[in-house]
């Protein structure tokens, strides 16, 4: 639409194709690895099933056999923690971003910018060492290895991200539209819920996806804060992994399963990201 780069169509497609190849090839590699025997991996490079190597179902037999319960547990937990925590982080983040975009805060010497700093600084802290303290805190309040604890941890982890991303989107929503909702008889909360949030939809969708991805792929928090019943997929994968023998075929198979939920999330949320929601609202 607006910023159309008037490159020739061919050039555009070529550029995209180059990136696409770069982006997709490793994924392709993962997919075919899931159908290799271990020795095919190390005798490669084999790129084309049936031509280079005979596809094997070894990995899938394990995925649907002896490892099924672990994988299902990991998938279920990851899905629950990631989707719920991302939702909470986005909703809370949206409200906070709205506040930072629309109001002036003054807590002692702290203004809006200091508050944003405090919030985003949580993200700066490298989790590697913090996890030990987190572990102790979680244990004190009995949240270790509990779904609630994990959702809390991921919400904490992603909230700074969502606040930061969404503040910009909030600032772009014309004030008049909100005022219109007030005039039309709606209280602040309803204004935010019915008008502001839908208009921040591309931002919300992006923030949700990023939060989802971060929780989905988190390793260190899950490592420290879960034992068993709340272990997530990355932990399950790591447990299957390479220390003893490089079961890359098996890990790849789980990897294929692991990208399905985030892909679904993208497919569902993509339409919102694309929307040029603010167009047409104002002069």
């Amino acid at each position: 639409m607006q910023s159309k780069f008037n490159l020739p169509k061919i050039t555009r497609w070529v550029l995209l194709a180059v990136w696409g190849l770069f982006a997709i090839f490793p994924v392709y590699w993962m997919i075919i690895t899931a159908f290799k025997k271990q020795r095919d991996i190390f005798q490669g490079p084999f790129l084309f099933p049936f031509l280079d190597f005979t596809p094997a179902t070894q990995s899938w037999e394990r995925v649907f056999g002896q490892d099924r319960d672990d994988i299902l547990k990991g998938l279920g937990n990851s899905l629950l923690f990631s989707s719920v925590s991302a939702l909470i982080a986005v909703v809370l983040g949206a409200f906070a971003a709205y506040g930072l975009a629309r109001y002036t805060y003054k807590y002692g010497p702290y203004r809006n910018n200091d508050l944003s700093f405090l919030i985003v600084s949580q993200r700066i802290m490298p989790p590697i060492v913090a996890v030990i303290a987190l572990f102790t805190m979680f244990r004190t309040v009995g949240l270790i290895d509990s779904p609630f604890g994990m959702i809390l941890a991921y919400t904490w982890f992603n909230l700074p991200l969502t606040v930061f991303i969404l503040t910009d989107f909030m600032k772009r929503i014309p004030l008049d539209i909100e005022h219109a909702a007030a005039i039309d008889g709606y209280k602040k909360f309803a204004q935010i819920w019915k008008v502001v949030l839908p208009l921040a939809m591309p931002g919300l969708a992006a923030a949700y996806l990023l939060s989802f991805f971060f929780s989905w792929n988190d390793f260190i928090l899950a490592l420290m804060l879960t034992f068993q019943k709340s272990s997530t997929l990355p932990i399950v994968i790591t447990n299957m992994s390479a220390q003893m023998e490089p079961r890359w075929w098996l890990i790849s198979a789980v990897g294929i399963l692991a990208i399905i939920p985030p892909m679904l999330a993208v497919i569902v949320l993509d339409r919102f990201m694309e929307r040029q929601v603010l167009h047409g609202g104002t002069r």
Partner: protein
Amino acid sequence: MSSVKLEALTKKYGDNLAISNLNLECQQGEFIVLLGRPGAGKSTTLKLIANIEELSSGNIYFNDQLINNIPTENRNVAMAFESYALYPHWTVRKNLEFPLKAPGRNIPAAEQEARIRRVAELLEIAHLLDRKPSQLSGGQRQRVSLGRALVRPASVTLLDEPIAHLDARLRHSLRGELKQYQREQNATTFYTTPDYVEATAIADKIAVLIDGQVRQFATPEVVYDEPADIEVATIVGDPKMNILPLAPGATRLEINEAWLQLPPLPPEAGYIGIRPVNIQIFENAHPYAIRGTVYVTEPMGYEQVIRVEAGEQLLNIKTLLTTGTFSIGQTVWLQPDWTTIHVFDRSGQRLKGGFH
């Protein structure tokens, strides 16, 4: 459907005074036009009434009740924004529905539908109900915005230049219908515009806003015939009134080696104003007329506006097209109708009394 009283409204943005000591009182059901140039404080006044902007000081009464502390959503005001402020994520129908469905309104579904129909027909947007704002033209959006303000009963309806971006035909037809509609609804309406023609056409009363103050608040006729000061006089009327400075104690007007005898004026008179329609123009030399050169001509339908350079003055003259054809650079003769002049003192205030 309230009477409205604005008492000493003041709005400051930092050190800038946007509205200073603004007073206004109107009856229930009146159609008030706030007329003023851009930046005069029209929109701000509406926003203060709606409580979108916070008052710096002053009081607002609806039906003689002080409502300063009542939040926007409970004031029961309707408003059409200059920026339209449509909900871009909803269809036109949902946009119109939204105020009807607000908590506490309890409007039956059938009535909602009827109101939407009625407004959509009035504004000629019935065929657009299922579109989203981004699929509308600018004019269509403005009509939706206006529709959203009109669709529901409100204590006060605030319309911020609601038809400014419509095409001429619609603008014209809507003026009348809008007024009619609001009268039917018995709605108190505040309407802003910089266009005096529109203001006169639609207003029960015009409030002329200059520098955040009401300079004159009266019926359109009074504002036109008896402008309170030079600034009001120049805002009201198109093309604007010719203002000629007078030398102290002057008894005649001298322009281009000719002079015209003035009617008797009070001694404090500093300026006279003559509306463009009150100057006759002749192609040939004429007694009791001053000479000038045509600077530019603008035909406007059956009329024309001619600007004439006369001495140091650039005078606007409005006359019928049939008066003659004038070309740039042509020498013409002008004759004011002294019975219609307005007289202002040195500070620009109108001097009372007729000089006809």
